């Protein structure tokens, strides 16, 4: 029988949650790397036993851990993230120049076809690639060198490259998103990049529809339609039908269009999930109710999914990398909260149950569908 493996990164370690296809009974394994911040753990689509984890600490810096047995054992690999050439400056919060400084890896995106190739999105924002299983890392400098890099500014969480989407139909095309610079696309394997932010409006910046400067929180795509992108921006949920060349708002009837994660049903490319958050100054769910919102129409019309989720006295947040879907026939949806709960739905969001309730604050959730 098929099963799932949920990879959870938290403020104090990584956890691996496994279940069979019924997704009722779970085994909790961890913490791995206890006491370290685990921003992200992700498996290779080409080899589900190959996992990569970003392990970091304010004291001791960045480590990358690799597992070749599905998370049972791990070994540190390369951790030298050195910017290409003279890094130069970006803008600090107050608009003054600030030197580019590596802080941590926010997101690891393994290649769709090669387990030894993996991309890393880092703070201060840049994209790195390893082609030797994480042993060595090299920047793809065309992104920072695009010309707007010196004008990028951090969001409150730091100037992080947090989203990397690889186009399954075109190995030369990839998308990234940076807080608070915006979304970018490459059509030549990451050598050159263009900003794809037309249609975004951000009242927090002097030129509200500028080419860059937007605090994009997350973008998502369905593998069958890589030209259709969905975005949770700082405020506003957005959609593009032309690979990011233009965007339109699809927030519709959401109770708040502020939030962090956005994801797409594994088998229904017009079915979307978001978790509205009250505001940029109150990072918890509106009305003290934890509600996932689902649209079955590609946006604008949203329904609250509440069955099994706390509907009173709830003040958690769900961070940008903390939602994922599995590929089983009845699509599973998973998310983790800053309160340490990981919730799962085995019926596309109709009902929910906690897999585990009391982990450290959850930073990321990924899921692997196992044969």
């Amino acid at each position, binding site marked *: 029988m098929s099963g799932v493996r949920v990879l959870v990164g938290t403020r104090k370690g990584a956890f691996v949650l496994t279940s069979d296809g019924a997704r009722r009974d779970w085994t909790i394994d961890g913490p791995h790397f206890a006491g370290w911040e685990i921003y992200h753990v992700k498996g290779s689509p080409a080899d589900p036993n190959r996992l990569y984890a970003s392990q970091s600490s304010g*004291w*001791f*810096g960045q480590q990358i851990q690799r597992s070749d047995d599905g998370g049972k054992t791990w070994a540190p690999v390369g*951790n*030298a993230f*050195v910017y290409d050439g003279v890094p130069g400056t970006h803008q600090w919060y107050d608009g003054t120049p600030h030197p580019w400084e590596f802080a941590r890896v926010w997101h690891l995106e393994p290649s769709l076809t090669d387990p030894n190739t993996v991309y890393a999105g880092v703070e201060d924002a840049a994209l790195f690639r390893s082609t030797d299983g994480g042993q060595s890392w090299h920047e793809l400098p065309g992104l920072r060198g695009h010309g707007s890099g010196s004008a990028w500014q951090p969001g409150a969480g730091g100037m992080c490259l947090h989203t990397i989407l690889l186009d399954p139909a075109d190995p030369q095309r990839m998308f990234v998103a940076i807080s608070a610079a915006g979304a970018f696309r490459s059509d030549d394997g990451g050598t050159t990049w263009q900003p794809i932010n037309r249609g975004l409006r951000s009242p927090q910046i002097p030129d509200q529809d500028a080419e860059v400067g937007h605090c994009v929180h997350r973008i998502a795509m369905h593998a069958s339609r890589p030209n259709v992108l969905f975005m949770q921006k700082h405020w506003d949920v957005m959609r593009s039908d032309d690979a990011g060349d233009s965007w339109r708002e699809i927030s519709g009837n959401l109770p708040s269009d502020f939030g962090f994660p956005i994801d797409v049903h594994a088998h229904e490319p017009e079915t979307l999930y978001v978790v509205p958050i009250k505001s940029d100054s109150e990072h918890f769910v509106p009305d003290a109710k934890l509600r996932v919102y689902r649209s079955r129409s590609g946006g604008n019309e949203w329904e609250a999914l509440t069955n099994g989720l706390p509907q009173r006295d709830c003040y958690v947040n769900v961070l940008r990398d903390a939602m994922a879907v599995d590929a089983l026939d009845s699509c599973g949806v998973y998310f983790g909260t800053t309160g340490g709960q990981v919730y799962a739905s085995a019926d596309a969001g109709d009902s929910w149950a906690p897999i585990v309730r009391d982990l450290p604050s959850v930073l990321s959730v990924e899921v692997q569908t196992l044969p």
Partner: protein
Amino acid sequence: MIRVVIPAHLQTLARASREVELDVGSEPSLRSVLDALETRYPMLRGAIRDHVTQRRRPFVRFFACERDLSHDAPDTPLPDAVATGAEPLLIVGAMAGG
């Protein structure tokens, strides 16, 4: 032999004991001890000092013989008691919560 005490997080990272012994040669310095430590435990590269600049990470300190050596030049000879192995060199994570 130089005795080096490493903090808990680096013990788990390197799968090493709290105190490790290193053969560094005559006139050991912070630089030569850290070079030897990183040679034996390559995963500690970047965890104590920066990969490129070799500067001590801001929240890491070096103590020995009841002295703070954190701001000594990296090639300064370590105290005799450390060089002879009578006292350990302490690599310490700055005191903080979290």
